[in-house]
């Protein structure tokens, strides 16, 4: 941090330099004005206000009423569903992150070894990640449905009994994970770019030293793509922490709801197994209008995700610093 800042610090204030410094500030301020104002209105203010609301009871109609730590007490002691919601999100953070990074790395290394059809395979693997999550979820609910879904048909061909997937409390989160893997193309492309950036001489050197493919991967590939993998892990964790659309659409579609997913009374179906933390926050705040309670949930979400964000920001600062000094 110190080096980054000092690299940019102004030279000792000679009168002329001070003048250009002031002008520089004015120019920068003009360029930053809209974004700065927007940052304050749409990010900084709501962040602070969330903390304030978390200490109140507020239903959008009556003025907020200060209740101290009641919301937090309720969150940690008496409210049963938040525990389910936190468990579901934690499940996703662990399983989905591991699966997503390993899977994306696997696919990317296959693509990086291809000589023919690289562009085609890359496109086919990447395209699904562009599909609107609501539509992709609907497609998966259909593909995985137990009566006539193609997936279970294929599984039957190889002698596996497919199960209920989105209609089963134990299978719904694994099904959501498969959906997330189908849409992990962006991470694949990022890892692929990093794999292709590994200097080929390093592989040659390792090979001359007698390193086999596994050791080459372990000692050459992994170290040189580790920054990108860190990015992938943090990115996936934050993706899992805010997992909302797929969960809410899958829950109500599988339950056969006849309403917009968010308005449905089937949220979290089956048996609250798709009730993620953001979904429960949404229901508390915008279905039950317990805005104070939702704000307290948001504060907790902030604390958790801020930790991961910080790791990424630190890494980014390091890499952007290198870039500037080159």
């Amino acid at each position, binding site marked *: 941090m110190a080096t980054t800042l000092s690299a*940019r*610090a102004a030279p000792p204030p000679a009168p002329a330099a001070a003048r250009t410094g002031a002008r*520089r500030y004015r120019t*920068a301020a003009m*360029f*930053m004005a809209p*974004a700065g104002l*927007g940052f304050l209105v749409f990010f900084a203010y*709501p962040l602070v206000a*969330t903390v304030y609301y978390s200490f109140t009871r507020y239903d*959008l109609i009556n003025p907020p009423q200060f209740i101290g730590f009641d919301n937090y007490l309720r969150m940690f002691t008496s409210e049963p569903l938040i525990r389910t919601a936190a468990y579901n999100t934690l499940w996703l953070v662990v399983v989905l992150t591991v699966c997503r990074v390993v899977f994306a790395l696997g696919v990317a290394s*296959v693509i*990086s*070894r*291809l*000589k*023919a*059809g*690289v562009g085609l*395979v890359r496109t*086919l693997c990447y*395209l699904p990640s*562009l*599909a*609107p999550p609501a*539509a*992709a*979820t*609907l*497609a998966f609910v*259909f*593909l995985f449905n137990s009566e006539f879904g*193609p997936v279970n*048909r294929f599984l039957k061909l190889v002698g596996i009994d497919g199960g209920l997937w989105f209609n089963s409390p134990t299978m719904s989160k694994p099904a959501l994970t498969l959906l997330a893997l189908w849409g992990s193309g962006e*991470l694949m492309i*990022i890892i692929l*770019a*990093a*794999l292709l*950036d590994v200097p080929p001489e390093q*592989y*040659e050197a390792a090979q001359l030293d007698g390193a086999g493919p596994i050791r080459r991967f372990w000692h050459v590939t992994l170290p040189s793509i580790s920054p*990108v993998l860190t990015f992938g892990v943090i*990115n996936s964790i934050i993706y899992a922490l805010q997992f909302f*659309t797929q969960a809410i*659409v899958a829950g*109500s*579609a599988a339950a056969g709801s*006849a*309403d*917009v997913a968010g308005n*449905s009374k089937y949220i979290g179906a089956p048996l609250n197994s798709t009730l993620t933390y953001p979904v429960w926050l949404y229901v508390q705040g915008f279905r039950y209008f317990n805005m104070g309670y939702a704000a307290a949930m*948001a504060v907790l*979400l*902030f604390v958790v*995700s801020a930790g991961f*964000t910080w790791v*990424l*920001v630190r890494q980014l600062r390091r890499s*952007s610093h290198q870039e500037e000094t080159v």
Partner: protein
Amino acid sequence: MTTLSEVATHRPASVPPRVRVRQSWNRRLHWVATHAIGLALGIIFTLPMLFVLLTAVMKSDQAMSASLWPTEWHFENFVAVFDRSPLLEYFANSMIYSVLATVGALLSAIPAAYALSKLRWRGQNVCFMLIVSAMMLPPQVTIVPLYDLWVRLGLTGTLVPLIAPYFMFDAFSIFLLRQFFLTIPRDYLEAAKIDGCSEFQAMVRVLLPMAKPGIAATAMFCFLFTWNDYFGPLLYTGENQDHWPLSLAIASFRGMHHVEWNLTMAATALIMAPVIVLFVVAQRTFVRGITFTGVKG
């Protein structure tokens, strides 16, 4: 593009001929295996889309059966969905949201990205890190006061709360544009300024033409993000069907006609189509943009 298998082909020249033959067989086997896996991956990723399309052209009762291949091809299903649901209106809402938000994001993010990459001022790093934090944090963190704000302004139930913020602040666009701008040498701008251009003129006349690919990528990601957005529209327009974008409408379409999987899949395919067309048209821009978000991240 250097691939790993190319690297593997570099062998010392002094290998005896018989070993070389075996190695070439090994290499061929390796080639076949790798490409078989690659092909399989491509197919697996495509299958869900394929089944969506095949189901979309089935008769209603066949879509509810175990058969995978349509016995009759009902391409008119793609037309029928428009009778069932005001898809065109939803499409218009999606377009309004995505196009305006993209325009707004570029207008507000270009100057900010310029200031963060091409000007030098104390505190610019801190500003940039704040923007990255805003980009990374889950949207649910700030949603309670924001919703409250839009309720007080009387604008919930419209697309305004979704679009307006982009005209001032979109963290991701600022981030991506800054990363692109950093790759453009400062010298060109310095030269323009020596020729008497102001900072603003230098940005518009020199930097922007050179940064076109980056701007295109940013615009596409912004369009894609808003097109696919579900949480925002649910929150602000959920109560008002007239302002639903496609992403929200599709989930309810499934609800209204939950027996008719063929029509649901036809609608699903229709909402995916614009995004796929966009990708096919501008594949290079996309792929470059993604690598930018990650490698520099």
